[in-house]
């Protein structure tokens, strides 16, 4: 995945056993700061607009750097 922001981390897990239709992603970015969940997910969706057309199942978790540090 293209990084949304320099200060970001993304982790993609293929859950489809290789058929490539089911993914979950963890995106950590300061660009999410102050944005509600829906806006964060919409941001990720817009970056992956083309890819999502062929992905059947997509799960995402969107955290700011601060939130990510707090949980790990």
């Amino acid at each position, binding site marked *: 995945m293209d990084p949304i922001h320099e200060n970001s981390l993304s982790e993609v897990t293929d859950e489809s056993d290789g058929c490539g239709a089911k993914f979950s992603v963890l995106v950590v970015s300061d660009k999410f700061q102050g944005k509600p*969940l*829906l806006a964060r*997910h*919409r941001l990720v*969706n817009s970056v992956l*607009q083309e890819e*999502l*057309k062929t992905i059947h*199942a*997509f*799960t*995402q*978790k969107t955290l700011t750097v601060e939130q990510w540090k707090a949980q790990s």
Partner: protein
Amino acid sequence: MNNLLRRNLLPIYNNAIKLTYRPFADAATKEKIDKIVKNNKVVVFMKGVPDAPRCGFSNAVVQIMRMHAVPYDSHDVLADENIRQGIKDYSNWPTIPQVFINGEFVGGCDIMLQMHQSGELVEELKKVGIKSALLTAAEESPKSEEKK
């Protein structure tokens, strides 16, 4: 004859004014979805029906609604190809299930799950006059009274 013509042509004419940049089929579907999402406080577009969801993500949303004892309308997108694509265009959201509260798109499975976990869902439901069963249970239990 005249009446028949008027009845058939008038809606087309109206749609053409509202959405001149869109083909008629899309405009008709959009109007249909508009009505559906405003028909009830909570509306869920899913694969299958609440008693037999045909997708794990749809099932998760059904389970959340059940936990909060939310009354809602559900629509099976597998039963209508126009709605299946139309709802994605309508809310600009690429996946099913989709949840609407008070006619507004709230999110899909991930968002519902996180709103459920954070307690935000209880608040959103409260705004539209639905009291979550989890809230009722918390009030009745003396343990949570102590916490307050």
